[in-house]
């Protein structure tokens, strides 16, 4: 089954490129530490999912590029062509002359309706290339205007037109301190709209990715391309092929569907985050060895102590004793905070994967009281190694990890809203204060729901 990616705005297009490049590179990596036959099956599975084939044999990303200004898309297209390994479809790009100017309302209410038909036609063409469509990745930043506003609009249209297909938005969560000044407004408008039209929001925090580049990858001067590569790696570690449950020699057909069924069935809990282990620079990798027990122990602690990377894990955090009441919102600002999970999915790739013991993740103390681990935990495996790591683990988690950033964004936006700052920029394009209030209401509810697990 295939996934069609819609890359929106500067951020979405830059990341989209890195994602396809990472997928291609990994699936064509000769030393997957498995048999040739298996490697080929892995490759075929990855290809069916993310690439279609052109006459001359060059894989074509199943993607639609959308931006409201031409610079980034043209750069992205040419970068892919120059790679010589894969490319974007000839007619898969839609761009305009003038961006959305960081204005969510402009993206959503002006660009959206104006270009609805062209964009949806492009998407439909891409969909028609698939034998079987599992769903969509919609890659977009939350802070800007095109990614966020137009992204929300497109997602809603996808929901209307492809109601049975799955929609996963790849949300780029802005730096806590400034990229765009109105990012908090744009964010709450985006999140609240996606909560209505998307099935899952896979959140990638710029701050966390940045730290990984600095601390784990040892990059001195970090560029957006570095950050996007880490993100692409994380995404690949989840969506590259894994064995399906029933027949271990078969690759999972519909990872998107399986993932969503396991992680986001409840309408109030749609926020997902990824954690990976190990992540390190090529140099350090040469001197490292890993055991499954070690990796999983770290990964588990990363989960419960809500740390985004292997370094600086707080080992003091423990699951609470059973029977204690949940702490509610008061606990939000305390330092030592246990990150309660709703549901988790662990993906293991590499040598001796069957010997990995996942018992640590099946501990009911990790999960909210209303779900048993049997309902809340899943694991996918393949012994095909991922990227350059002999063994690696990824965790997709629906947990309280985003509670604090979300609460902060809502709080900041609310402060701005109470001062009526910047509102005129939005009302100019047909939004009303009521729309803001609706968004606040919905997100306050989400915060409260995640708090009261």
């Amino acid at each position: 089954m295939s996934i069609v990616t819609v890359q929106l705005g500067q951020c979405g297009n830059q990341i989209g490129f890195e994602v396809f490049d990472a997928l291609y590179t990994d699936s064509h990596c000769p030393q997957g530490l498995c048999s040739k036959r298996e490697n080929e099956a892995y490759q075929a599975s990855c290809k069916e999912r993310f690439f279609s084939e052109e006459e001359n044999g060059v894989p074509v990303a199943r993607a639609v590029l959308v931006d409201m200004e031409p610079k980034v898309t043209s750069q992205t297209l040419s970068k892919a062509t120059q790679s010589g390994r894969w490319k974007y479809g000839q007619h898969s790009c839609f761009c305009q002359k003038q961006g959305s100017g960081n204005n969510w309302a402009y993206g959503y209410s002006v660009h959206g309706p104006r270009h609805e038909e062209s964009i949806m036609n492009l998407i439909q063409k891409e969909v028609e290339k698939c034998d079987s469509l599992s769903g969509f990745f919609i890659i977009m930043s939350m802070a800007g205007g095109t990614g966020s506003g137009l992204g929300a609009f497109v997602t809603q249209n996808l929901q209307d037109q492809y109601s049975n297909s799955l929609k996963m938005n790849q949300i780029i969560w802005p730096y806590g301190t400034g990229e765009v000044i109105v990012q908090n407004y744009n964010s709450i408008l985006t999140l609240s709209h996606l909560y209505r039209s998307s099935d899952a929001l896979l959140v990638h925090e710029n701050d966390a990715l940045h730290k990984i580049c600095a601390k784990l990858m040892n990059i001195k001067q970090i560029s957006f391309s570095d950050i996007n590569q880490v993100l692409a790696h994380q995404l690949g570690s989840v969506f590259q092929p894994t064995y399906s449950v029933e027949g271990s020699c078969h690759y999972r057909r519909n990872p998107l569907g399986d993932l969503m069924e396991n992680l986001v069935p409840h309408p109030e809990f749609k926020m997902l985050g990824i954690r990976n282990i190990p992540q390190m620079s090529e140099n350090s990798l040469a001197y490292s060895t890993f055991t499954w027990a070690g990796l999983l122990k770290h990964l588990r602690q990363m989960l419960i102590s809500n740390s985004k990377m292997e370094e600086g894990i707080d080992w003091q955090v423990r699951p609470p004793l059973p029977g204690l009441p949940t702490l509610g919102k008061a606990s939000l600002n305390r330092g030592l905070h246990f990150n309660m999970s709703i549901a988790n999915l662990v993906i293991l790739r590499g040598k001796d994967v069957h010997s990995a013991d996942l018992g640590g993740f099946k501990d009911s103390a990790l999960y909210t009281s209303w779900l048993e681990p049997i309902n809340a935990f899943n694991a996918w495996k393949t012994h095909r190694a991922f990227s350059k790591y002999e063994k690696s683990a990824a965790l997709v988690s629906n947990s309280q990890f985003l509670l604090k950033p979300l609460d902060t964004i809502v709080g900041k936006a609310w402060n701005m809203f109470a001062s009526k700052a910047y509102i005129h920029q939005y009302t100019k394009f047909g939004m009303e204060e009521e729309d803001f209030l609706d968004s606040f209401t919905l997100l306050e509810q989400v915060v409260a729901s995640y708090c009261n697990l």
Partner: protein
Amino acid sequence: MGRRRPRGPRGDTVGALPEAIAALSQTLPAGPSPEIFRRAKFDRPEAAPALWQLLFRVLSPLPRDGASASPASPALEAQVHLVKSALRSQGYPRRALAQLPEDGSQGSRELLLALAWLLARGPLLEQLLAQTRVRLGDEIPLCECEALASAGPLPPRREADGPVDIRHLQWLMGKLRFQWRNLITSQQEQCALLGKIHSYTQGCHSDRSLGHLSVAETELFRDPEGGRQLLQRLESENARLEAALVWRRQELVFWKWMDTVLGACPLEASQPTFLPRIPTGGAGELELVAQELQALHEELRGAAEPRRAAWEARVGGWGPEQTAVQRASREAVGRELAALQRACEQGEALAQPHGPCRLVKTDARASGGPGLRAAELIGALRSRETRLEAVLGRLQTRCRQELTRLAGARPGLLWILPPGR
């Protein structure tokens, strides 16, 4: 049909009974040897296990794709358990069966009686044959009689331990929704693949009306070993069908024989009458229907009474001419309603086709020829969909009203509904 045996005088020949029993045993899936039947008449214990197993096969719903997956049969004890409860729910009258030991070691005569009861009650053999039919074509059932609600073979129940949080229900409901969507996606893919296979093999079928091969037929080439098995299954089904035809001719003699078996049984003492327990689910459903009917009744009364009153006021001094027209009207409506009444009582689906259909891809231009048209079915399904949506909508509205009413009990709160679709 050179195999047809010469027809003897009906049922009276000496060899008729063995022949009938042999035909029966051959028709039944994994039917025991005729010898077992004979021993069962004398209630011989060694015949019991085979008959328990037979009844289990007959009574347990089969997975649709019966041939590919024949799961290991459960332990005999479990089979006994299931047979008993299944017979109970279907209203099997004899108490003696219920009292048979659970280990399945006894009661071959009672089991023979139970089998006969099942055979006498309805078209059991026909059902079994239809269920295990070898599917050569790519089929699509026309109706949703089995719907999604019918369970496959029942797994051992893992009942919920205790009270759950309502969020747990929301979780399960959400999972179900995703399952639905994944199902649709898979099905769309299946249709796309079928379409391809059909058009690639266009003109390959010996049967002109079919034109192309089905998946199973194409698979013959892809997997010769599987093809051989398919052929074997087909041939064994043919044998069973032939046996079933023989059974039809000879069954009378079997029933006479069964009379003697029944005669050999002691009369069951007059006992405290018992009725099978109706599953709670059923009772719940009954109440729901009752409510719906009641609501409908009210609505009808609300609609009819003012119309009647208005009518009475109008017809005051009408002449005979109008009266005649009135009578004609009454008769026409009466006829229509009688049909409706019948439909309500017998549940006959109104002109809705049932059963499996073999999919055939045809040129859109080529008209005529036997068979249903997809377009017509689509139309019917669409209207059905609309009706069901309306039903669901009504139920949801009712809930909304009820909750709004209840919300009034807590002032000082703002209820912010999700924005309308």
